[in-house]
């Protein structure tokens, strides 16, 4: 059946732009009022913010201290090591994007876009500098790695190994070796800025992962001694603020260890963050463990697997897969919580910001500097939470 030629179309006010406006902004009298109040609010705040940031804000403080914000007191002649690490990560991201596709590809492409944007900004801010060269090298390597690896599914397992190896190599390369001439030691006390922020978060989450899994298994164990210990640890740590734990490891860790063993500020902060994160990790993993249907375990037992094998090959693989998005969420929280290291006098991104503001020539620029720091955190956290959201959809968590 076909519609006759003189059929009237829908009223003009219910379709198209007008229809959308009526439905979403002016459906009732109070919605219309609300729309105008919101518009007025946006106008007042937005116009003030834009005119301030274009006219009276002094953004030169960011450009002048760029290296400090990125690597802190890392020796300037050794900064190439950080760039090499970034190159390596770029290459790994490129390959991952090519091999896995999907969300990872979106990510790789955003990374490339990010390098291109930064390179354009660098072209205006620091016309002649090696930063520009490094940024372009990164852009090239991301894209090259992506196109070389595209569609090679066989690389998947190698890639996981490469990421783990990359983690260890990164630490060795940044740390260097005592007495070496071309790779002199850069002790962790000289790490700073965004580099330290990332290292604190990554090292803590990697170390706390196995601890958290053990604690989660311990909490569900049938052995009372193990169970009580796990519950006590998890609940005690979750009941106190992170600052108090950081303060405790800062002051008490040296007292707990034998006198000969000295560990510096940064390692103490990492120890504190690891202790803290392990408890939250355990709760996340426990959530995954509880979601495994008992039938899975009974079936495995019926096949004659003992408890250890059931846990290792049946329960954990399914449970961990299910909690990946939750772990990403935990990583975002930890990434933001690294700012607390400022309170125990570490020079991570916020710490650097405070030391920059203490210089007489930048007095009174708190607004600019803190907005910059917040923007950097927002960029990374938002990207990660977006990734976690996509991952959740891809893994079909809660849908099977």
């Amino acid at each position: 059946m076909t519609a006759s030629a003189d059929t009237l179309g829908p009223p003009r006010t219910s379709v198209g732009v007008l229809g959308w406006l009526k439905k979403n902004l002016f459906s009732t009298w109070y919605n219309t009022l609300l729309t105008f109040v919101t518009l007025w609010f946006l106008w007042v705040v937005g116009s003030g913010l834009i005119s301030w940031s274009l006219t009276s804000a002094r953004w030169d403080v960011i450009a002048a201290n760029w290296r400090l914000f990125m690597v802190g007191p890392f020796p300037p002649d050794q900064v190439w090591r950080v760039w090499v690490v970034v190159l390596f990560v770029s290459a790994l991201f490129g390959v991952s994007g090519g091999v896995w596709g999907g969300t990872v590809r979106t990510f790789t492409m955003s990374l490339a876009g990010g390098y291109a944007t930064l390179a354009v900004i660098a072209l205006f801010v620091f016309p002649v500098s090696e930063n520009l060269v490094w940024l372009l090298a990164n852009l090239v390597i991301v894209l090259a790695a992506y196109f070389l690896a595209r569609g090679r599914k066989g690389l998947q397992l190698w890639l996981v190994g490469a990421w783990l190896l990359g983690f260890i190599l990164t630490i060795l390369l940044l740390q260097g070796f005592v007495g070496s001439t071309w790779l002199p030691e850069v002790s962790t006390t000289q790490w700073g800025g965004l580099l330290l922020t990332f290292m604190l978060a990554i090292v803590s989450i990697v170390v706390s992962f196995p601890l958290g899994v053990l604690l989660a298994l311990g909490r569900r164990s049938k052995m009372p001694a193990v169970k009580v210990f796990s519950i006590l640890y998890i609940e005690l740590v979750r009941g106190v603020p992170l600052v108090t734990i950081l303060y405790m490891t800062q002051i008490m860790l040296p007292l707990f260890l034998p006198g000969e063993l000295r560990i510096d500020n940064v390692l103490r902060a990492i120890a504190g963050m690891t202790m803290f994160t392990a408890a939250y990790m355990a709760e996340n993993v426990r959530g995954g463990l509880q979601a495994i249907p008992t039938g899975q375990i009974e079936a495995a037992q019926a096949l004659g697997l003992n408890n250890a094998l059931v846990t290792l090959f049946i329960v954990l693989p399914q449970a961990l897969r299910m909690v990946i998005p939750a772990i990403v969420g935990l990583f975002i929280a930890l990434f933001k919580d690294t700012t607390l290291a400022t309170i125990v006098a570490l020079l991570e991104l916020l710490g650097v910001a405070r030391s920059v503001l203490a210089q007489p020539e930048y007095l009174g620029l708190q607004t600019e500097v803190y907005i910059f720091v917040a923007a950097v955190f927002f960029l990374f956290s938002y990207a990660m939470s977006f990734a976690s959201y996509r991952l959740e959809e891809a893994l079909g968590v809660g849908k099977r």
Partner: protein
Amino acid sequence: MERHAAVPLWRDVRVLTIVSQIVFVLILAIAAGFFYSNLSSAMRQRGLVTGFDFLERESAFEIGEALIPYKPSDTYARAFAVGVLNTLLISAVGIVLATILGVLTGVARLSGNWLVNRLAAAYIEIIRNTPLLVQLVFIYFGVFVKLPPVRESLEFPGSIFASQRGVVMPRPLPTETFGGWLAFIALALVAAVVVWVVLPRQPRFRYSNAPMLIGLGVLALVPLAGWFAVGQSPLDIELPVRERFNFVGGIALSPEFSALLTGLVIYTAAFIAEVVRGGIQAVKRGQIEAARAVGLTETQILQLVIFPQAMRIIVPPLTSQYLNLAKNSSLAIAIGYPDLFNVGATIANQTGQPVPVIMLVMVTYLAMSLFTSLLMNIYNARVQILEK
């Protein structure tokens, strides 16, 4: 039938369980002993002592704001109590305000108005994806410290002033007829509770809004009638008056308290908004359609169908947000508000006895956390029964 061969000891699950627990406890004991011996030798070397004797000594430091009278000649124990009370104050006020802002934002996030919806989403995303500490130092050093001096302080409607010295607002002062008015309020409360408890049991009112509205009416009208019945006004409003260097009268909030409160409320409200949104969205569409089909009004649907079911989902995550707020108030040290952790750190510095002080601080936080969880668990249990 022949008997099964006995399982050898090293493969008997019961034996293995016991042995592995003994090994576990032994390892723990050895680790604890190792740490303890290191700790005691290190403390001997540095002349640190255990015990809490230092609490009785004179503190000799100033605290910017205190709820109980405090002077530097008081003991460390009293200084510690000041810190605990400050933490409790900021947590209590913060929880109330964050709940209000969070629920409003959560509802705005579900609004059919596109602009309001997007604005709420932007607020939630920006706040949730930046660190609280950065927000706090921004609000304190970037906003409150940069406010104009008292002479040029900003004035808001209702005699609220903001300046470098913080925020001042009017304060209600009870007069001599206040006691009589209080009796009216108590009467109204009792009457309202009676209405809420008794009326819904009548078959006529079982599914109606009337009991709630009557109760609210009683709660509003009786104190209002009392206000005029007692003759003289029971409350005087004390307006802050600007003097040359500072304000006199009214409630004065220090810039540290105001900044910490603003930061904690804005941050926690963004998380509460997501909790509220999740709870409301989790109520199944069919429930609402069924309620409409049996002829409930929209208000009744909200009150009898959506709200009770959403509460069941909202309460547990809401509890952890409240606990987070209380724990996050320890970031006060970054902007100089004398809360529990800040005062604790000062005491640890001054006495040179960090170990017992840290223990004391952690135990206090733990007690607060456990107490709040306990209260919320009781409430949660009631909400759950209400639903089924």
